[in-house]
């Protein structure tokens, strides 16, 4: 074997990690090679330096105390009743608190999204139908108006004068061509007893009451 290979296994030689055959080969080489013997001596010194690292010697009392300490602790842990032992996993407040908060937030979000705790307050799309009913009711109500002031000329929203027939047409056009939102606005204004078209201004109290009676009979949803 060459010196380089021998030196590569010298630590294994010291540490008894070589097979019997290899060990014999190294022994044979070392007998004949003073350089490798010197390398071995150096490594042996390092090895011995590690191996004989001085450590404090402990007396019997120390070891007895150590053993007693371990066994006492084991007995102490064993003597703890089962109900006092900490279970494998008990979520503490650090886990419970954010989990509860998250659950409450989710529930609140669902309630708000659905429009109430037991679902939507009104069935989906009902608002639209109501609006359409209101539009129809308005058209009918305005068409059936037969008392005098409304049959006479009245002011339209643009400031011009219009007949009852024209008012009907406007009302119809409101329900057909205007945006639904605008129609709703008109109706809201009517309910609030406002008169955007100025047609009710000239009515007497009795006529006005008759108008509202007629309107409420045609429009029972209010």
């Amino acid at each position, binding site marked *: 074997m060459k010196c380089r290979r021998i030196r590569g296994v010298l630590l294994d030689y010291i*540490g008894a990690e070589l097979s019997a055959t290899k060990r014999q080969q190294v022994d044979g080489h070392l007998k004949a090679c003073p350089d490798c013997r010197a390398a071995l001596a*150096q490594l042996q010194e*390092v090895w011995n*330096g*590690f191996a004989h690292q001085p450590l*404090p010697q*402990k007396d019997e009392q120390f070891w007895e105390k*150590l053993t007693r*300490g*371990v066994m006492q602790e084991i007995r102490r842990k064993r003597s703890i009743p089962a109900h006092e032992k900490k279970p494998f996993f008990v979520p503490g407040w650090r886990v419970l608190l954010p989990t509860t908060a998250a659950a409450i937030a989710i529930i609140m979000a669902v309630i708000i999204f659905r429009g109430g705790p037991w679902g939507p307050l009104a069935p989906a799309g009902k608002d639209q139908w109501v609006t359409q009913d209101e539009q129809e009711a308005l058209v009918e109500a305005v068409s059936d108006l037969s008392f005098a002031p409304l049959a006479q000329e009245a002011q339209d929203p643009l400031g011009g004068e219009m007949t009852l027939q024209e008012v009907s047409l406007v009302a119809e056009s409101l329900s057909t061509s205007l945006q639904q939102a605008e129609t709703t606005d008109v109706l809201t204004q009517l309910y609030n007893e406002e008169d955007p078209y100025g047609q009710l201004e000239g009515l007497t109290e009795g006529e006005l009451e008759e108008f509202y009676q007629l309107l409420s009979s045609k429009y029972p949803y209010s």
Partner: protein
Amino acid sequence: MGGEDRLVERALAGDEGAFEELVRTYQAPIYYLALRFVRDEQAAADLAQTAFLKAFQGLQNFRRGAMFKTWLYRIAINLCKNHLRDRARKGLETSAEIDLPSHSNPLKELIAHEDQRIMLQAWEQLPERQRLTVTLKIQEGMKYREIAGVLGCSVGTVKANFHHACKKMKEILQEGRDEMP
């Protein structure tokens, strides 16, 4: 089944006496292993005690057929690593000096002290993994295969770590001696 395996089986069955025997067998190696690492006698004693407690608590998970010694060393080494990391995090130095035995001859003591100083200096410069390997190989007399089991790496890695550590120690020792008057 060997004597140690039987002790482990009995301990598993709840026999405290059997576990006490295991403690008596391994307390010195585990204590000195910890002491070499943490260089603090009180901490080493605490770590050794904790290692046995952890071993007892985890005995149900101990794989039958595996070596109890390897398993116990692994527990102790992990505890030592954690201890050193905690100490480093807190910025603490070794609090207690190791009380070394003294020589009767003052000259011998001086030379030995100097050699020890150089050795200790060299030792401190080694990476943790290499120090562990050297301890288990030289001071505990383990085979490469056994060390690989304890450290959870391959035999090749153990060999490489060991060879690097020794080479470095040889160089540091040589440099130290060259600097001596």
